[in-house]
């Protein structure tokens, strides 16, 4: 990636390419849009600043996820101690509503939405590290090596995190998810 600090055209290009994956990564990790939007703003502000610049020795996307990871972690930690009051139960209740809403939808769509809610909830129940690892793997197709770089942990740890995340998801989801094509 030829991105040089301060190169507006390059930043724009990067922004177009990475805004959606980064936003969804942050959304799934943080669990709400407000936080996710913050993370995305931060990442792109950081990109244009001189403090952070992509390291030539790692893939740009990995670097971008790593920056997002750092911001996401710090925002989540901050939130935990300060304003968590505002967000209590918010997601839970939204989920209930979404389940109730499916009555008029075609079957397949309704089922898909219900599944989405169940998946959301199950992922929400994972601990932060497991959650991040499984999200980077399943939704962003990062290799274990890249995940270890993003999260700054060992490869062995990545394997274990993903394995445990899956075990827990299995426990929570397997009985709920309707039969799908194998």
């Amino acid at each position: 990636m030829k991105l040089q600090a301060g190169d507006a055209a390059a930043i724009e290009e990067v922004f177009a390419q990475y805004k959606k994956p980064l936003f969804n990564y942050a959304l799934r990790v943080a669990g709400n849009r407000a936080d996710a939007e913050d993370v995305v703003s931060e990442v792109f502000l950081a990109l244009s600043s001189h403090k952070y610049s992509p390291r030539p020795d790692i893939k740009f996307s990995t670097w971008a996820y790593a920056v997002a990871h750092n911001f996401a972690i710090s925002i989540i930690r901050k939130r935990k101690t300060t304003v968590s009051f505002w967000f209590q139960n918010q997601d839970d209740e939204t989920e209930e509503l979404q389940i109730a809403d499916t009555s008029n939808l075609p079957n397949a769509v309704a089922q898909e939405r219900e599944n989405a809610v169940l998946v959301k909830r199950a992922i929400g129940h994972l601990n932060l590290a497991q959650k991040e690892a499984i999200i980077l793997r399943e939704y962003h197709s990062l290799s274990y090596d890249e995940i270890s770089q993003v999260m700054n942990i060992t490869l062995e740890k990545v394997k274990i995190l993903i394995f445990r995340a899956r075990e827990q998801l299995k426990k929570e989801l397997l009985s709920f998810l309707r039969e799908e094509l194998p």
Partner: protein
Amino acid sequence: MIEHKKIQELISSYVDGEVSGQEKTLVEEHIKNCSMCMKQYNQLKRISHSLKSWPDENISPDLEQKIQKNLLDKKEREGSIMRNNKRWASIASTVTIVLVLLFSAQLYTKRGIQGRLELAQITPNTVSIMKGTQGVLRSATDNIGGQYSPQLAFNQNKSLSRSTEPELLSKNYPISNGIARSEHGTNVFFGGRSDITRDAGGYQSYSSSESLYPHPNYYVPAYPAYPEQNTEGYDNIQDNGFLEAQNNPLSTFSIDVDTASYSNIRRFITNNQLPPADAVRIEEMINYFEYDYPQPTDEHPFSVNTEISACPWNTQHNLVLIGLQGKEIPTNNLPPSNLVFLIDVSGSMANANKLPLVQQAMALLVERLRPQDRVAIVVYAGTSGLVLNSTSGAEKSTILNAVYSLRAGGSTAGAAGIQLAYRVAEENFVQDANNRVILATDGDFNVGVSNDIELVKIIEEKRNKGIFLTILGFGSGNYKDSKMEKLADKGNGNYAYVDTLAEAKKVFVDDLTSTLYTIAKDVKLQIEFNPAQVKAYRLIGYENRLLNKEDFNDDKKDAGELGAGHTVTALYEIVLSGSGENFPTVDPLKYQETVTRPSNDLLTVKLRYKNPKEDASKLLSKTLTKDALGEKGVSDNFQFASAVAEFGLLLRNSPHKANASFEQVLQRARAAIGEDPQGYRLEFAALVEKARIIKNNLPIIIPYQLENNVDHLNLPDHYQRYEK
């Protein structure tokens, strides 16, 4: 087992392709021999797959713009300052970051509150608080001088019956109401303090005479999801009573070839429920089954058969069976068809037992179409539209593609759809052909010209032009049985309820000719009883098919249609003269004398029908004499029809059920199963058994036949895949 634990971890990596060559072989070798780990592998695959159902979300455009603007601002500032003073640049960027942070924090806080408020409006807590508010309000307004109007209550009701869609929620709170809303919301948010009376609506109702009533939108409590209400509609049916033959020697009714009631009942019982009494139309149950009457040999398109024997549920009485058998038409002699399918694709049709079943049913029919047949498809929901222009039966794939492209969504404007369908049918009208609109719906015509009478008018008008109407009912929960039966009746058509693919096959494949090809129309029956032999009689079923005695000879009076190969069966429970039973009677007439002619006849069946293209009716009659009473044994037809009738009496809990019992029904039904090539009679027996279990609260063991009633379908392979 450490071994397994290790392997399972490896499997997780294996799924992601993150294993070394050695590990890969290890896992693959192990999986081959260890079913547990194979299962683990498959489960992880499934979990992986299922996670995909959480879709990516889109970033909001305003955030994009904001970020881009920030970047641009920063760039500009950097460009001008940086060259001179690097320190300024860093300060500027810090400031920008701080500003952005502040801005986003503000944004976030706003969103947080808003989200919170919207949620607050739907939490049960809020509802109770709001209810409290209403209580206070009501007493407040009452105090003002009884000026409390029902408006408040009305709003309440409206909100109770509304659906749970979020758009509706926001509609209840127009933007102009924003201030009151946030004020109220704040109260709620801070624990719903008791300063309720101070909030906008209540306060105004005290102080200002202009707005005596609280804002209509303000006190709409938002309720969480309500369970879907069952809004199935059935017309009330009163069992026909016994009539004394002396005073009422004539019994007149129109034939009924509908079968919907039986399949509807089957749906109920299959779902472990007994059907509501009004859903049970005994004649439709009896006529669901085919009986083995002889084919007509004379010039008439059908034969009339009679039989009499002891009444199984009341041995004091006798039961008379009257059976019509329509002439069979060999399939290759059938006239061409001009069919217009009118398919309800409203939101309510989305369930698996509705639109998907319609599609499967149509696929079955398309399979049977010949090149000379034509099919068009019209759908109706919020708007109606032509999906498939009239297409030859040779182009099966075109038709099937159109069928499977149908999707449910929107509300229902049945009337517009019917009009369009008839127009298409008229445009493609073929003389001497079977011109027919086939309506597939769950019967919910809730938008537009929804007036039954108007619909009926359209249908009658088209009927006179030679376009008939067949109605196929689907689904449950919202099923408008009463409306559909009436419409089909007016349209010279028939009406079937399709609950399973097996039923679809019965309607479209096995009974295709009788469903779609009319051989006689306006078929009326009039039975004259001989008061010398018959004291009283009772027609079983046909409650909503009764005609006045003078209607029989009135050719303008519409009645039922008979399809090719159709059988129609009616049962009379009769009391022979000499019985000690008393029936309500009238005083002897003062100015007339009734003289009975001596005769051995019990009754005479008179029948009127018209050929499909004629307007003058033909008459035929048949007499049943006392001698028939002496005949030994009963036919399978009689056994089975009486069993079905008895089952109907039980389901309706009829006042005339006497000694009827499920056991007797079962016994007779099983004895009379006969050839039963389609398995319908066997299924009936299973249904009775299940109804008996439900009725007596016995533990439910689902009868084999009911669960496997697709077994006898023997569908071509490409249909099988739609069955689980």
